């Protein structure tokens, strides 16, 4: 891949940008910790999809109908 290739330029652009960060490093660390907490802990352990964990696959509409129409 030549140095004039736009992909190479884009890669260099991001690589240099990330290397030169100071405050940005802290912010990225916070973002990554936050994303880990949101997706690897909260989503997995505390926020399962209620319908897909309680209804049979393909029977979701019957499940919701039962819940809504029984009230």
């Amino acid at each position, binding site marked *: 891949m030549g140095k004039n290739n736009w992909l190479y330029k884009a890669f260099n652009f991001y690589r240099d940008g990330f290397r030169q960060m100071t405050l940005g490093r802290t*912010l990225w660390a916070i973002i990554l910790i936050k994303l880990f907490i*949101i997706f690897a802990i*909260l989503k997995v352990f505390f926020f399962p999809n209620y319908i897909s964990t309680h209804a049979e696959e393909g029977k979701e*509409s019957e499940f919701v109908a039962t819940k809504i129409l029984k009230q």
Partner: protein
Amino acid sequence: MNNLFLTIDSGSIDWARAQFALTAIYHWLFVPLTLGLAVVMGIVETCWYRTRDTFWRDTAQFWQRLFGINFAMGVATGIILEFEFGTNWSNYSWFVGDIFGAPLAIEGIVAFFMESTFVAVMYFGWKKVSPGFHLAATWLTGLGATISAWWILVANAWMQYPVGCAFNPDTMRNEMVSFLDVALSPFAIDKFCHTVISAWIIGAVFVVAVSCWYLMKKREIRLAKESIKIAAVVGLVASLGAGMTGHKSAQSVAEVQPMKLAAMEALYDGGYSQGLTLVPGIEMPYMLSFMATNDFHGFVPGIDDILNGYTKADGTEEPSVEEKIIRGKMAINALAAYRKSKAEGAAEPVLTQQLLTLNENMPYFGYGYVKDKNDVVPPVWINFWAFRIMVGAGCLFILFFAVLCIMSFKIPYLSIITRRLLATVGILPETQADSNDIAALPAWHYWLAILLLPLAYIASESGWLVAEFGRQPWTIQDMLPTWVGVSDIESCSVALTFFLFLFLFTLMLCVEINIMLKQIKKGPGHKN
């Protein structure tokens, strides 16, 4: 159901609502600053582009740094709301079908591609791309955030005014029949304009607050004075714009959510030529009618009118809530009968008749779940006071930014007259009356400007309280009440995550404020 003070014994519905409110309120701390600061930093960088004065470049980089901190802290906090839909509000999530999912998916894609691309150019590209391209990236970062807000508000507006959809009794979902009706709903347009322009006020107040802190510390004087000038203009335009778009929003609410408007005004007995209550006991004659209908003698229904049925200004009859409950029950029974008949292989004419009954009564479907007609009245005092805090703060901001513009710019006659007037009433020291230097004011002036920042947030969150409390008990207006939309889950599990979020959000907010204050103390001289 409308308990404000929740206890551990309250049902999962109250905890689910409280958790959603907590997450949305927290998320909304970041969004308006992102939208508002984007405008200010765009203008500052435009000044650099036009003058090539390095002062403007340093100033632009400083505001972009604060923007970046806020952006990093706020990113992904909205995703938690989508988790809550799937877990706590599963019936609702299924019932809204692809209508809610489409705008949110578009928002996700736009946010990811547009914001992440241009944010990178904005931060990494100062010495790598041309000034014009960099300026475009800065403005497009703000535009990307604004477009994201558009799709989120389209989704929210649909819940308040469901259009462009048809209910499918086989799938139990609402299906989109017109994307344009959903995406360009007049309710969504009004909501977008009012929400985004009010977010600019927060951006302007933030810039003024930070600048005033510098003026108080007698440092970064030029940055502070020039930033205040820009923020004063942005803030004045935004606060006037928020007033105008708020008027339009109120008319939308009067048209499609009259109960919300009645609750906002604590109006029980409506009628023609209604006055607007400023605070209990003080009223502006005819102004509520004007606010709601653009006519000083227009008809505004009160809570009791809506509960008991009334005749609209155009002569049509609005059914009472009890009639709507009957029709809602007919819709629910027709839906149950249709599904049962279909499962049993009933003849086509039977199914057609059941569908006809369902479709005729579908606009009142949600009322079929209402046991007592008073259940459809939202919490009145929260709406009443939240509305007054929002409007009162908005009026204060118009005055504040108007005075700030006059004080910051040398406007012939007007500046000196205003300064003399302020000196006469004791707001400005006599020694400063003839000076046009905003950097030489007493410290309490700067403290006052700094204290306006929390007020701006309180006003902004109050606006959301009106929007969301006012539509209670509906998750989807007239179609699905909260107690039907909620999942059949244990209240303790929702309560657990509520307190978990409370802890995490408080922690993250402390971290953000800490980083933000450190960067403000460092000032523009310390580059990233």
